[in-house]
């Protein structure tokens, strides 16, 4: 059995807003193995955004430990966390979060730029081809549809061959047909071996995953495989 990619042990997160302490997570434990496809679900306020930020190394747990690829995040400096985000994580956001006025290929190449990779243009083109956008590499985000923008974001997330692809409501801004296309793409990436963790509040979208973790009030209330998985048709 290989080591889990994500290992959460009794993780809590407390925000202090003035004098008020908000306990966003109250002791969450779970592990995600390589090749898994997990959906994290829960109503707003359940702590799923906080959990997402922790997994994404944008924040550190208040107590408990989180290991990404065996590295304890709590011991890492800001500099090291940036390096971990660069090398081990790929983000896909609800709002796409592409750099406006920058071509698709350069958006995709951005992580390689920070990594100091010289061959980034060719790699970015290849990544765009993989997500089905080979013909639109020089378009800017405002010249692309929502679905196309999300594909650019996915290509950017994949470009550094991350250990985990983290998707935060990836279909939240898309119509159901386009969303279906994105889910198809995710399934294919998962079939190819990518580990995917997706935060969503949409049951239909969550059923594309192999496993669902449900949060409520900062605690895991359910962690189970999806019994009747929706299999998006692979194009």
């Amino acid at each position, binding site marked *: 059995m290989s080591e889990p990619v994500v290992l959460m042990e009794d993780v809590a997160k407390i925000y202090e807003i003035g004098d008020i302490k908000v306990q966003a997570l109250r002791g969450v434990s779970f592990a995600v193995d390589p090749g898994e496809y997990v959906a994290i679900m829960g109503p707003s306020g359940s702590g799923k955004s906080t959990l997402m*930020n922790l997994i*994404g190394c*944008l*924040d550190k747990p208040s107590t408990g430990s989180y290991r990404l690829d065996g590295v304890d995040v709590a011991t890492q400096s*800001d*500099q090291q966390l*940036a*390096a971990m*985000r*660069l*090398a081990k*994580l790929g*983000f896909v*956001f609800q709002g796409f*979060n*592409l*750099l406006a*006025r920058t071509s698709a290929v350069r958006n995709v190449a*951005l*992580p390689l*730029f*920070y*990594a*100091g990779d*010289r061959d980034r243009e060719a790699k970015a083109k290849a990544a765009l081809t993989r997500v089905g956008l080979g013909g639109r590499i020089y378009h800017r985000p405002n010249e692309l549809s929502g679905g196309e923008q999300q594909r650019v974001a996915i290509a*950017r997330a994949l470009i*550094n061959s991350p250990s985990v692809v983290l998707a935060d409501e990836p279909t939240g801004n898309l119509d159901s047909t386009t969303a279906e296309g994105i889910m198809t793409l995710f399934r294919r990436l998962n079939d190819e071996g990518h580990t995917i963790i997706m935060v969503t509040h949409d049951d239909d979208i969550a059923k594309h995953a192999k496993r669902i973790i449900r949060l409520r009030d900062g605690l895991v209330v359910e962690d189970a495989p999806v019994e009747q998985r929706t299999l998006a048709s692979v194009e």
Partner: protein
Amino acid sequence: MNSAVTKLGEFIGQALEVLWRNGMRSLLTMLGLIIGVGSVIAILAVGDSTTKSVLNILSPYSLASAFIFPKQQQPDPLLAQIRYDDADRVRRAVPDAKAVLPIMSLPMETRVNHQDKTVRVITAGAGQGTDTTPLAEGRLFSDQDLSAHRRVAILSAQARHELLGDEGSAIGRFVRLNGSDFEVVGVQAPPINQGLLGAGTTGLITVTIPYTLIPELGYTFVFGLTIVAPDGSSVTKVANEAIAALKKIHGSRAQYEERDIKQLNEGIQRVFGILTGVIGVVAGISLIVGGVGIMNIMLVSVTERTREIGIRKAIGATRGDIVLQFFIEALLLCLVGGLIGLIIGVVLAELVIHVWIKQLTPNIISFGWGQIIAVALLFSAGVGVLFGTYPAVRASYLNPIEALRYE
């Protein structure tokens, strides 16, 4: 290391792109700096050129000579009066002096077209001229002119115009002064340094005659003595020796003062230095104002691009990457502004020099280019570092989670 250099080049490319994309805004942001650098450069260039050019007016001859005359306030003014004969005695007492010449400046009467006219007559030695004003025609006095007591004259351009008219050559013609005729041997070029430092004589109705004529014209006492030293560095020493000699002749109660061009030289340099400094400080303030403008716009830019910063950080940009990105933008903004300012400043300086300074001196010496460019680069880079650091550091400290949520 190699990849760091590539990264830096990439940052510069990206920054230029951002500046170019926001062309109008970049230009307006730079405006303060452009004006600041432009004025600093113009002032330094004009100051440098003027000082050099003005000093160049003075001939090597005058740089080595001193003027000695009795002090205005003294116990016994009559006792201190310098006599024509004193020149020879001082000459003998001061072996280092190359020449000691009595100086006289007096009004004389002449008649032009049946009208009385007063001209200023000054005396000079052989081959002597206090400034570099060239002769329009003829020659300076020769040794023979002086030893033979020839009644010859050199006219200023104004004197030639007033006394002889502008037709034909003036050489060989005569001017009548106090009832005796003087043959014109030279005419000075038109006034180019009129009134400047009182050194120029060409703008007045001035007639120069050999100093050896002073006794024949009926004068025993003279204004003062010109002492010519071997070179500029020994002027003061030789002049002081001459004063000592005069005191031996007239008694220790007689008081004299000495003026040499070296003092004047230093005076000119000091005055121009102070002027340049004061105006430079004012221009420097506009530079700071320009810098504050750049900082302001960079802060606005950081706020506007909060989301971009969040994206970059989430993707894996380190704080250093973000600092570098915004710092380079500010620095390039300043350098481009400085470059435009440099061009404007130099054009302005050339204009001022050629329109205004040209009237003071015929031979313009240009300013030092290397120094000017170094100052422009240094100032604009300095402003960039000073005012670009804070916005860049502020950008780097943005929390990526909040930055990503920023609308």
